[in-house]
C-alpha cells in the first residue's frame, strides 16, 4: 500500500476526494433539499410548466439548496392527496417483490446444482446462462415478447415477473458463492446419512446467507429501477411503476416531483445503509471468473 508520507499530500488527497464526492452527491443533495420546498416555490424556482402544460412565465431555473421556508407540503400531497403516487409506488412493489423472492428461490437451487453437482451439458448450459446475462434488455425482451404475445399475456404483470424470476444472473452469482463453500461439511453430513435435500437446507443454505443477501440487494436495485420491460409489456399507464411515472412527472405534476423522487429512492437507500457490505460482496463475486 502506498502510504502518503507528507502532510501536504494528504491534504491534497482529501481535497480531491471532497471535490469528487461533491460532484457525485450534488444531484442527491439537490433533490433532498428541494423536497422541502412548497409547491409554489418549486414552480417559481424552476420555471416548470404548470399542470396544463403551458408556462405562464418562462424564467430560467435557479439552483437553490436552501428552500425559502421549510415545508412538508410536497410529502403531504404525494402521500395523502395525490393517489397516483401511491398507486405507482405500489406497482413498483408488486413488480419487484415477487421477482426478488422467486429469483432467490430458483437461483439457490440452480446455483447449488451448478456449483456442486456434475450432470450432462452442465458447463455448456452455464455458458449460455452467462451469454444471456450479458445481453441488453431489448434483446432478451424479443423472445419474451414473442412468447407472451402468443399466450395473450401482454399487458399483464406476469409477462414481466416470470422472465424476471428466471434471469440467469442469480444462478451465476449464487454458483460463484456456493463454489466457495468447502465440501467437508456436506461430506460429513452425508456420512451421517443426510439426503440431498437436507444437505441443501441444513448445510448449504445456512452458509449461503450472505450470498443470498447480495443477490437480494442486486436484484432489488435492478428491478426497482426497471424501465425497459414496463414500456414494452404494459399497455395501461396506471399500471406503470414509479420509474416511468417519474419520467413524466415534471410535466404532469412538477410541484411534488422532488418529494416523489426522494420517496422512490428511500427504500433503495435504506437497503444500501443496511446492506452495503453485501452489495459490495455481490459485485466482487460477479467479478470472479
Amino acid at each position, binding site marked *: 500500500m502506498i502510504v502518503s508520507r507528507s502532510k501536504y499530500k494528504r491534504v491534497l488527497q482529501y481535497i480531491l476526494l471532497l471535490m469528487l464526492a461533491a460532484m457525485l452527491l450534488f444531484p442527491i443533495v439537490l433533490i433532498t433539499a428541494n423536497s422541502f420546498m412548497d409547491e409554489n416555490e418549486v414552480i417559481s424556482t424552476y420555471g416548470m410548466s404548470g399542470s396544463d402544460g403551458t408556462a405562464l412565465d*418562462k424564467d430560467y431555473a435557479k439552483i437553490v439548496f436552501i428552500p425559502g421556508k421549510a415545508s412538508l407540503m410536497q410529502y403531504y400531497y404525494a402521500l395523502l392527496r395525490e393517489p397516483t403516487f401511491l398507486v405507482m409506488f405500489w406497482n413498483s412493489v408488486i413488480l419487484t417483490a415477487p421477482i426478488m423472492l422467486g429469483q432467490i428461490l430458483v437461483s439457490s*437451487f440452480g446455483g447449488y446444482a451448478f456449483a456442486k453437482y456434475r450432470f450432462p451439458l452442465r458447463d455448456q*448450459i452455464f455458458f449460455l446462462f452467462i451469454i444471456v446475462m450479458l445481453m441488453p434488455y431489448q434483446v432478451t425482451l424479443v423472445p419474451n415478447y414473442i412468447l407472451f404475445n402468443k399466450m395473450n399475456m401482454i399487458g399483464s404483470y406476469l409477462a414481466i415477473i416470470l422472465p424476471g424470476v428466471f434471469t440467469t444472473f442469480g444462478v451465476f452469482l449464487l454458483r460463484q458463492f456456493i463454489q466457495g463453500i468447502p465440501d467437508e461439511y456436506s461430506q460429513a453430513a452425508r456420512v451421517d446419512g443426510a439426503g*440431498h435435500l437436507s444437505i441443501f437446507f441444513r448445510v448449504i443454505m445456512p452458509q449461503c446467507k450472505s450470498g443470498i443477501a447480495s443477490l437480494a440487494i442486486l436484484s432489488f436495485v435492478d428491478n426497482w429501477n426497471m424501465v425497459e420491460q414496463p414500456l414494452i409489456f404494459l399497455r395501461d399507464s396506471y399500471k406503470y411503476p414509479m420509474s416511468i411515472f417519474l*419520467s413524466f412527472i415534471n410535466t404532469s405534476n412538477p410541484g411534488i416531483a422532488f418529494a416523489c423522487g426522494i420517496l422512490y*429512492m428511500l427504500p433503495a437507500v435504506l437497503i*444500501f445503509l443496511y446492506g452495503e457490505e453485501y452489495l459490495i460482496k455481490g459485485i466482487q463475486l460477479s467479478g470472479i471468473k
Partner: protein
Amino acid sequence: MKIRHREMVAGMIFAAPCIAGFAVFFAVPFIISVFYCFTEGISAISFVGFDNFKGLLESVSFRLAAMNTLKFNLISVPFILLLSLAIALLLNSRLKYISIFKSLFILPLVIPVASIVLVWQILFGDYGAINGILNAFNIETVDWLNSSWSFFILVSLYVWKNCGYNIILFIAGLNSIPLDYYEAANIDGAGRLKRFLKITVPYLIPTGFFVFIISIINSFKVFREAYLLAGSYPHQDIYMLQHFMNNNFDNLNYQRLSTAAFLIVSLIVILVFFLFSFEERYGMNFRN
C-alpha cells in the same frame, strides 16, 4: 457407479427449475425468433433468405442507432475506466474517514436514475440553470438536450450511475495485491512511480480487463438513462440501438426486431469471445 448416477439425478433435479425457466422464457423463443429473421409476412409466412438483414443494414435509423451505440462505447468506456481507477487508487489509502468516502462513491449505484434525472433536466433544460447563467452573461443559450451536447450529457449521467460498480471491482483488485511485494520493492529501493508501474499496474490488469468487458456490456444498456433523460425519440445523437428496438416493439415488426436482436447477440458474443481469447493469450505476459 450407482451412487454417481444418483448424484447426477439429484443435480439435475436441483437445476431443473432454472433450466426449465431458461428454456421456456429465453432459449426456445429465441430459437423461434431466429426463424423469424429469415421470413416475412404475418399470417402467410414465406422464407426470404437474408433480405431482412439486408433491409436492416440499409435502414437509416438502424445505422444511426448502431453508430451512436458504437460511439458511446468508444467514448464512455475509456473515460469510466480511467475515472474509476483514479478514484479507487485515491480510496485505497489509510486516510481517516476513508470508509465514509467509499460509501459515498458507491451510493449512486443504488439510487434510481428516474429520481435524479430531474437534476439533469434542471441543469441542461432549455430554460435550465446553465442557460440561466449564460443568459446573465449575455451569452447565447443552447438547448443542450436537443443538441449534439446531449451525447455528452448522457455520458455524464451514465458515468455518475455506473462508476461505483467499477470502483468496487478495482478496490478489490488493489486489495488482492500482496503487501509484501511493495515492502520488498521498498527494500530494493524502488521509487513510488516504479512500484506503481512494476507492481500495481501488472497485478491490476486481470481486474482491469474484467472491468473493461463489463463496461462495454453495460454501455450497451444505456437505454434506461437515455430514455429517462429524453424519452422515446431523443435528439438523434443519443438515439441508441435500444431505442431502435424499443420503437419497433410498438409496430410489432417481429422480423425486424428478431433480426436486430440476432445481430446484437452475434456482435456481443463475438466481442466477448475475442476479448477473452485475447486475455488468455496475452494476459499472462503482462504479469510476467
